């Protein structure tokens, strides 16, 4: 019998009521009295010196309030990078300034050159056309290999060879890994591209700056996954506004997928300029602007080598990756190809030696940062593709080759710094074989072939690391932020509970799932619990939502604060029941004295906390509100096995996904309905990456795929129904809920399954194709089949 409330139940989402009736409160729905509008004049060339700007005509246009340029931001801080990486030789990464508005030089198409503030958006846009720019175009740096070559044009004059860093991990493994590869019975090598993606949350970014002179306070309304982080970064590092004078509000946010983590120039601009003109300023991104200003994702070029002994045991993995940073270092850009990627290169396997080398490169393109999965999809894709290729070369079953090399004992210390606490990779693979009906594949292939189609099956595993932690270890590795989460649990006098969490929901359903945990712990109805998030004025501190961390870190903080509440409430109950607090039990919203029939309701205890007439005032403060900061002892490690079946049309090269199955181990589950939905969405993004999406620049740095006409987002008829299962559960051992996180798994685990399936289909048709880079478009498949 499924539960009807609490942990493991699947109540319908309460936030749906406003979203389904058009009464959500997204940032663009907010309009402030007297607000002005800003239109950003963005660079339409990728690389140029700005020799001059003539704004006289524009400034005189109707409605124009003021035009800002880079000169207005001299003396204002640049946008900070949140993770410092050190190169193999010990030197710190190159970290050139990242100005809010271009200063003297343009470095990518889309960079802000001027900001026109006017009474209406149309007026601002009209005025932008009257600005005359005197530009001296420079050769654009687009291709990473060319960027690294001696003599290449430089994106930043102070960064030789455009190389941000040259990172080796783990350096102590380098020589032994080389030796193992030299002595291997078999080495499989694969060169591949992890295609650049645009995150494309359906809600474009919006920022509204609102300075109020009477109290000298600035408020920023923004489409952010982590408003407290924006407050800290923008306040402390960019604008010099103390946190008590700065409030950041991220109301309903229409999807994030990573790209709404980062602190963006537009946020700093509206906050800064609102004070300058003493008037609220609103910016709403168009989709066209989003394509050239939202931080993009992936864009790795990798060579991976997998060494095996004569018994097909993996003995070593060695990789070299070029990682595109774009033109500037976005907030967490530097961590993605390093600590979020290299540390995952052991995968689900007991490979004793792993060595990763990553060179990060500046190019004249939009900055690149975390996108759903962030580093872990890149790791999974390489590893699971090379294993498939090895199985083919050795003539062994790809599932059996994986099984043979699975890690089976936990905790397990990988050769790349992580310690996996729990997992059961064999169990998820067995579950996958069942839900994907792998035994029926041969019949389905025969049926496809009868219809003139090639059918392929691709299987892979994944492991990911969620909830980056602990803070002190991350700090030692270069992180410039804490990685805890906070929660304040306020119990009102009549027993209702308000939770102020630093986690942020932009589709994940926290307003529904977080109350399930409180309901489980206290025994009150979920309707008595309200979740407050997305406002630095209401919750003290928070690190936000990314890296599948909300329930594992934010939920854990909420549990800790609730435990403090329960402990205090038990003391009050003990006083009222004239018993020892160690004898008090809380169940179904009632405190009772163990072994007696004496009891008191939750609500009566809460009221007593605020009306403390009969109350131990000497020992206990009145009130019932507690805060907890939870800093995890380790990452969590969700894992699983995915299977994809495709049909390839041999005449056109078109690939169609026929079946997709995912068996995940997320540890304990709070709301299975929400978890299913998270996996579905991730799979669609993975299928999108594998088959359709690509971010294409020409040799001049012009973005060719800059609209939904050109960037192929997955649509409803590009994907099938998915078969998902999360009944394999090995709970996390170090957080109080035993949860692991589920937000990114689908996007991490699915691309290799799709590409493995396409290769399998082509091989079944007699085509000797061992690899096709993503997106596996009809033209690429057709070219591969036809030599």
């Amino acid at each position, binding site marked *: 019998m499924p539960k009807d409330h609490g942990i493991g139940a699947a109540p*319908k*989402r309460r*936030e*749906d*009521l*406003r*979203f*389904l*009736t*058009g*009464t*959500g409160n*997204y940032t*663009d*729905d907010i*309009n402030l009295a*007297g607000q002005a509008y800003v239109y950003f004049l963005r660079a339409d060339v990728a690389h140029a010196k700005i020799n001059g700007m003539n704004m006289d005509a524009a400034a005189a*246009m*109707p*409605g*124009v*309030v003021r035009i800002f340029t880079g000169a207005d931001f001299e003396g204002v801080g640049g946008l900070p990078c949140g993770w410092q990486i050190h190169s193999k030789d010990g030197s710190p990464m190159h970290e050139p300034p990242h100005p809010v508005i271009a200063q003297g030089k343009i470095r990518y198409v889309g960079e802000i050159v001027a900001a026109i503030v006017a*009474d209406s958006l149309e007026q601002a846009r009209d005025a932008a056309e009257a600005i005359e720019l005197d530009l001296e175009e420079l050769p654009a740096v687009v291709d990473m290999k060319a960027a690294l070559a001696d003599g290449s044009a430089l994106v930043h004059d102070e960064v030789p060879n455009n190389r941000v860093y040259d990172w080796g991990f783990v350096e102590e493994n380098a020589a032994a890994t080389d030796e193992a590869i030299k002595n291997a019975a078999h080495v499989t090598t694969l060169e591949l591209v992890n295609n650049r993606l645009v995150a494309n*949350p*359906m*809600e*474009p970014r919006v920022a509204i700056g609102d300075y109020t002179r009477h109290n000298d306070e600035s408020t920023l309304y923004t489409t952010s996954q982590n408003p407290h982080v924006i407050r800290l970064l923008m306040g402390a590092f960019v604008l010099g506004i103390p946190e008590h004078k700065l409030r950041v509000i991220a109301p*309903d*946010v*229409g*999807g994030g*997928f990573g790209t709404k983590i980062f602190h963006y120039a537009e946020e700093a601009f509206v906050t800064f300029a609102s004070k300058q003109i003493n*008037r609220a300023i609103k910016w709403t991104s*168009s*989709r*066209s602007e989003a394509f050239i200003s939202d931080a993009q994702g992936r864009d790795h070029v990798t060579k991976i080598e997998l060494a095996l002994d004569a018994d097909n045991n993996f003995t070593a993995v060695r990789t070299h990756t070029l990682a595109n940073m774009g033109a500037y270092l976005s907030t967490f850009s530097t961590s993605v190809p390093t600590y979020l990627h290299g540390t995952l290169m052991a995968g689900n396997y007991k490979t004793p030696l792993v060595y990763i080398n990553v060179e990060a490169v500046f190019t004249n393109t939009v900055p690149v940062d975390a996108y759903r999965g962030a580093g872990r999809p890149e790791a999974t894709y390489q590893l699971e593709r090379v294993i498939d290729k090895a199985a083919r070369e050795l003539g062994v079953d790809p599932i059996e080759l994986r099984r043979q090399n699975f890690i089976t004992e936990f905790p397990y210390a990988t050769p790349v710094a992580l310690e996996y606490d729990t997992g059961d990779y064999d169990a998820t693979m067995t579950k996958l074989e069942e839900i994907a009906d792998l035994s029926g594949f041969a019949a389905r292939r025969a049926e496809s072939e009868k219809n003139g189609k090639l059918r392929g099956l691709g299987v892979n595993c994944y492991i990911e690391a969620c909830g980056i932690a602990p803070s002190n270890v991350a700090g030692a590795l270069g992180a410039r932020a804490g990685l805890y989460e906070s929660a304040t649990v306020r119990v009102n006098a009549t027993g209702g509970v308000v939770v102020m969490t630093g986690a942020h929901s*932009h*589709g*994940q*359903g926290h307003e529904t799932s977080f109350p399930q945990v409180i309901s489980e712990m206290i025994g009150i109805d979920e309707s008595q619990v309200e979740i407050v998030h997305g406002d630095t004025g209401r919750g003290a501190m928070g690190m936000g939502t990314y890296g599948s961390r909300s329930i594992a870190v934010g939920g854990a903080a909420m549990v800790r604060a609730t435990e403090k509440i329960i402990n205090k409430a038990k003391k009050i109950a003990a006083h009222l029941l004239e018993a020892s607090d160690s004898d008090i039990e809380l169940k179904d919203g009632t405190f009772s004295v163990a072994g007696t029939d004496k009891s008191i309701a939750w609500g009566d205890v809460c009221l007593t906390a605020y009306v403390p007439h009969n109350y131990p005032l000497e020992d206990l403060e009145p009130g019932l509100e507690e805060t907890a900061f939870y800093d995890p002892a380790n990452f969590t490690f969700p894992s699983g096995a995915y299977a994809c079946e495709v049909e390839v049309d041999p005449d056109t090269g078109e690939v169609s996904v026929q079946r997709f199955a995912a068996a995940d181990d997320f540890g304990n589950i709070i709301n299975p309905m*929400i978890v*299913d*939905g998270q996996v*579905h*969405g*991730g799979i*669609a*993004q993975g299928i999108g990456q594998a088959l359709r999406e690509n971010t294409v620049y020409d040799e001049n740095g012009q973005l060719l795929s800059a*609209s*939904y*006409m050109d960037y192929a*987002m*997955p*649509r*409803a*008829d590009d*994907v099938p*129904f*998915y078969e998902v299962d999360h009944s394999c559960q090995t709970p996390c051992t170090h957080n109080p809920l035993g949860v692991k996180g589920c937000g990114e798994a*689908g996007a991490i685990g699915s691309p290799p399954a799709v590409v493995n399936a396409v290769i399998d289909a082509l091989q079944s048709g007699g085509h000797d194709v061992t690899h096709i880079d993503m997106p596996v478009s009809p033209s690429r498949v057709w070219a591969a089949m036809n030599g």
Partner: protein
Amino acid sequence: MFNSAIGKDFDYREEFMTQVSMTVNGQAASGDVEGRTLLSTFLRETLGLTGAHVGCDTSQCGACVVHVDGKAVKSCTMLAQEAAGATVDTIEGQANADGSLNVIQQAFQDHHGLQCGFCTPGMVMSAAALLKENPKPTEAEVRHYLEGNLCRCTGYHNIVKAIMAASGQDAEAIAAE
């Protein structure tokens, strides 16, 4: 306060603005618009009906879908003046008279057919138009009909299920096939 040229040199409103009237969610609505004002802007900015969302500028995403004289229309692709005199229905007018969710809205909640909610108003309005044309669509027909509505959160699985369920079909059985 407004450092603006409006009103100094010419009357901007008189020059460019005209009044449009239409029936929105059963009620008379009117406002001043420029010739270039889009229906989506009129609904969102002038009438304060912010349910229809603008997710792109190439008429691809469908977050702004409303019904104009009973037909599903991308309100970012129609001028407000083109809708003069028309009957416009938006997501705000879809609930039952007692405020409860209508059959399609309820199916979206029951089947978790939305996550961030941004594409949802357009999805619901497109679904309503589909079911009016085709009361018992197949899975393939639903997927094909939604080609003009992008969702980045759900992978479409639960949206398709919700629409099938709203049409009275057994969505669980269809998804499990």
